[in-house]
């Protein structure tokens, strides 16, 4: 699934740059996002994802390059663009002293929505976020997962064509995460364009039709999650653990048994077509790891291949 083929384009960047003083956070990136697509920015902390998001949401101005959102220039049409998108910031930024309901209603007022419309819409959104019973609680008293769902509900108050989520599930427990993903699928089915930044590869694989991998302010790869894995990694990965200090020395020993070997501080990764097969040949060669694990290749491996670093340290 790609952005070509005459589909409606909602966001397009060419040579996009963001500088903060002498520091270049985003160093000339290109991407095109089609309507209805769910598009991911994957990368470690400091890769330039959030800076890119802030430019796409017309909050911060590009330092150079061109950016067009809904065919409009954010430098000129900031308010119009922001009126048509929803933003879920990394740190919620909710009004802690106000009630759950007022948080949504007040936010809706910023979009000039009439109160009558807002009351109805807030009821729907509270239901969507499964917060109806907590409607009159102070936000301060909610759990982390509830706050996150409220932030998403709040971002939907203007019925946005495009929803921008910055690290939507960071800091949530697995249960809260799955509930959130389920709500996001629902939005996607309804045709909302999703833009998601994350440093969780499983999240990217689950949610994104297409993604770019960012590192050091640049895009190092682009494609559908499966395409990226097929293109940049082998089918399976054999993970071996030895004694703590032994890993570095194992590279040359293991190299003949795999297409590629990566040595990490706590384990050695062997990129192979068939993991069980590889493990047998390793054993046959008289090498005995403390533990062994065979798994399918993931975006984590793509990232490691492209940047030489892991996503989450």
């Amino acid at each position, binding site marked *: 699934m790609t952005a070509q083929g005459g589909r409606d384009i909602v966001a397009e960047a060419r040579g996009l740059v963001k500088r903060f003083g002498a520091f270049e956070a985003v160093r000339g990136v290109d991407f095109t996002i089609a309507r209805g697509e769910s598009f991911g920015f994957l990368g470690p902390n400091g890769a330039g994802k959030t800076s890119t998001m802030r430019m796409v949401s017309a909050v911060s*101005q590009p330092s150079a390059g061109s950016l067009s959102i809904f065919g409009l220039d954010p*430098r000129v049409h900031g308010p119009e663009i*922001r009126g048509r998108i929803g933003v879920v910031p990394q740190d919620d930024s909710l009004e802690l*002293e106000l009630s759950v309901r007022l948080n949504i209603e*007040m936010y809706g007022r*910023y979009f*000039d929505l009439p109160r009558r419309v807002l009351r109805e819409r807030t009821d729907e959104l509270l239901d969507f976020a499964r917060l109806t019973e907590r409607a009159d609680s102070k936000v301060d008293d909610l759990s982390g997962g509830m706050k996150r769902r409220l932030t998403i509900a709040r971002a939907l108050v*203007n019925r946005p064509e495009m929803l921008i989520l910055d690290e939507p599930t960071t800091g949530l427990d697995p249960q809260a995460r799955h509930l959130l993903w389920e709500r996001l699928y629902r939005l996607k089915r309804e045709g909302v364009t999703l833009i998601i930044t994350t440093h969780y590869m499983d999240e990217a694989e689950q949610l994104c039709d297409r993604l770019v991998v960012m590192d050091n302010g640049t895009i190092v790869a682009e494609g559908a999650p499966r395409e990226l894995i097929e293109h940049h990694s082998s089918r399976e990965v054999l993970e071996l653990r030895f004694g703590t200090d032994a890993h570095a020395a194992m590279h040359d020993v293991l190299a003949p048994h795999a297409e590629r070997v990566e040595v990490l501080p706590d384990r050695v990764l062997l990129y192979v077509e068939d993991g069980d097969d590889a493990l047998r040949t390793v054993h046959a060669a008289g090498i005995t790891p403390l533990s062994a694990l065979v798994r399918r290749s993931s975006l984590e491996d793509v990232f490691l291949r492209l940047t030489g670093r892991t996503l989450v340290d």
Partner: protein
Amino acid sequence: MASRVLPAFGSRRSLHIFERNYYAYRSQWLMFASGFFEPFFYLLAIGIGLNHLVGALPVGGRSVSYATFVAPGMLATSAMNGAVIDSIFNPFFRLKISHTYDAVLSTPLDVTDVALGEVWWALSRAALYAASFIVCMVLLGDATSPWVVLCWPGAVLTSLAFTCVGLAGCTYVRSWQDFDVVTLVTLPLFLFSGTFFPITLYPQWLGAIVSVSPLYQAAALLRGLATGQFDLLMLGRAGYLVALGLAGLWLAARRFRAILTP
């Protein structure tokens, strides 16, 4: 007219920030209401102790009690202090420290809307406090003329002028420590702008310098209004405050634009 002279600053959407503050502070009405007592205590102390020590002072052609002399100056000062705190401190704190408005900035509102919204809020508070100050003046017998009601628009004008200047100043604030600089400006203004004694006590050259102080102009304007002694000079004083406010707004708009569009 004004919109052609001034660069665009904020929009009608700024009113939503006023609305937001209304909800956020709704439960704290007692705190606002109790603000009434602060000027009351100050004026009461001056009435009890200093009227007796200082005696009558001439204002215009008339001789008035010390409290009657001081009250308009205190009103002007409280308008200045409130305006400076609300326009420098609040936008700085909420935009940079508490990040109250991070989420708001991804709606159609921008930074100038937020700043302007804070100004609307500050001005309505100032108008409320000015009204209660004037009530205190009347209750304590410090008002000698029914024209004292005109002090209300006068005090609001004073707030407006200082708010606009403060808004420009807000764009220069980098950290908390810069607030000491603000105090170093407002405190001498408060103490030496003819608030506590007529500027005729200064040597002539010093009096000329002090008369440039916007707080002196505001205090003199309010003093004339409070005692019902009108002269043409008061138009000049009001004009001075209007000009100051416009200059502040012009600078603020330019600075905010520069920050927003690098």
